[in-house]
């Protein structure tokens, strides 16, 4: 960031940003107040919509007695493991397919067929093979979230700038060096985009498989809360899942910004 504009415009921009944040916060507070008013006026049954204060209390209790910790850790762990597996296998496989034209011709149609298949549809197959186990969850998460990163890697490898390949041969680079110095870095933007989509799918599948297999986790928590009509717990669980999704996405965005800083706007 430059400060060439002197003090006044910067100050004005800071003030503007402060005012915007305040307005956005005020709006969010208004929403919560409206929510409270709706509950207080008994417009909606508290079974469906608990008061915001009750949800907040529930959350505080869960944090204080650490009962949030175990399901949060379990969900995050399964998701992270499945996603990491999917990314590693997806990049390796995608690289193999993307680097060879004939592999693309023979395999791409099959891969394209697999992509739109709803990932959750393989849950019953995984249950058949692995039972209602942790391994089943991780297999489903990995299998379901592999497609975006795999296809993005194929795309990234296949669209290597032709002139850079020519440059590599003019420099007499070995194939391994071409892969490491030219093809792989060039595919990173595509791979990162694929991994982001995969991450969202991994979280969804982690929640769904927990519900299916009755495993300890945030997904099972909210399902149990719903079954016993503990609505405050249900809302608190949804909130935690939202925060988890947000934190994971922001974390990956940070990594991406660091890896792709060469793509940032010219300075």
């Amino acid at each position, binding site marked *: 960031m430059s400060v060439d504009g002197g003090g006044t415009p910067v100050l004005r921009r800071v003030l503007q940003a402060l005012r*915007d944040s305040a*307005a*956005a*916060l*005020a*709006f*969010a507070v208004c*929403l919560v107040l409206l929510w409270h008013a709706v509950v207080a006026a008994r417009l909606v049954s508290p*079974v*469906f919509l608990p008061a915001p204060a009750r949800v907040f209390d529930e959350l505080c209790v869960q944090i204080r007695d650490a009962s949030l910790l175990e399901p949060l850790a379990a969900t995050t762990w399964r998701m992270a493991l499945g996603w990491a597996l999917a990314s590693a296998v997806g990049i390796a496989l995608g690289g193999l397919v993307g680097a060879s034209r004939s592999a693309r*011709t*023979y*395999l*791409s*149609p*099959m891969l*394209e*067929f*697999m*992509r*739109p*298949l*709803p*990932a*959750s*549809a*393989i*849950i*019953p*197959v995984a*249950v*058949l*093979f692995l039972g209602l186990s942790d391994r089943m969850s991780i297999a489903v998460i990995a299998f379901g979230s592999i497609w975006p990163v795999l296809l993005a890697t194929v795309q990234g490898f296949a669209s290597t700038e032709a002139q850079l390949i020519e440059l590599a041969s003019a420099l007499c680079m070995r194939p391994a060096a071409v892969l490491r110095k030219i093809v792989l870095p060039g595919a990173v933007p595509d791979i990162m985009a694929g991994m982001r989509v995969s991450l*969202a799918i991994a*979280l*969804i599948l982690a*929640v*769904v498989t927990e*519900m*299916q297999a009755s495993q300890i986790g*945030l*997904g099972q928590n*909210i*399902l149990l*809360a*719903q079954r016993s*009509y503990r*609505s405050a717990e*249900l*809302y608190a*669980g*949804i909130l935690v*899942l*939202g*925060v988890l*999704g*947000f934190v994971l*996405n922001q974390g990956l965005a940070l990594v991406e910004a660091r890896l792709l800083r060469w793509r940032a706007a010219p300075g």
Partner: protein
Amino acid sequence: MSQRVVILERLASGWRGLVVPCVILLVWEALACTGQLPPDTLPAPSRIGAAGFGALLDGSILLATGQTLLAALGGLVLAALLGVLGGVALALSPRVARVVGPSVEAMRPVPAVALMPLALLVFGFGLSMEVAVVAFACVWPVLVMTTAAVRGIEPRLLDVARVLEMGAGARLVRIIVPAALARIGVGLRLSMGIALVVAVTVEIAIDPRGLGFQLMTAQQSLRPDLMYAWLAWIGIIGWGLNRLLARVGTAGDAS
């Protein structure tokens, strides 16, 4: 002449794409027939085909497909309405975007499946809860693309509207939506792909109807052949929908 060459080439490459799946199926069939594979986890492809044919004959495929597609479509329509209106509002008024935007953004990372229990609580089992969850999942691409599209409209077009003293409604219908339509279409296409996935997921996890439920039931009633048949059918529906969207997309881009 060159067009014919292109078609021939595509036929040739399409044929190559079928080699690997066909080989897999043949090997699978051969292994299953010779008893090398456990029939309760990997039944022969021929038995899967027969089970699928049976489901087609007794009408359960048609019924389940209709239920799932209806839920997906309903959610999509709802998402399109909300997404386009919300996106236009966010794009046209920077103030609205600054004030409301963060609250909307805060809801976005909530995985749609986390709302399944809530939707179940509010609507009970059935079409409406499925539509609600699908709509929540599908609204984001439409909203994001609409906002980007409307923000990207040539400012002079809006000046024209002002010069012609159009009202807000006329401006929306005659200038904004047509000018942003192509990119809104991109968002809709993305959402359509999501809609089917979410609908099937809701059915697998909670809602006892549609393709996902049939798939689950087949597994639980120890009919692996039927389960694989449903899985293949869901794959075909997803693939077909994807192809249809791609075709619509290219037609839209060409016009």
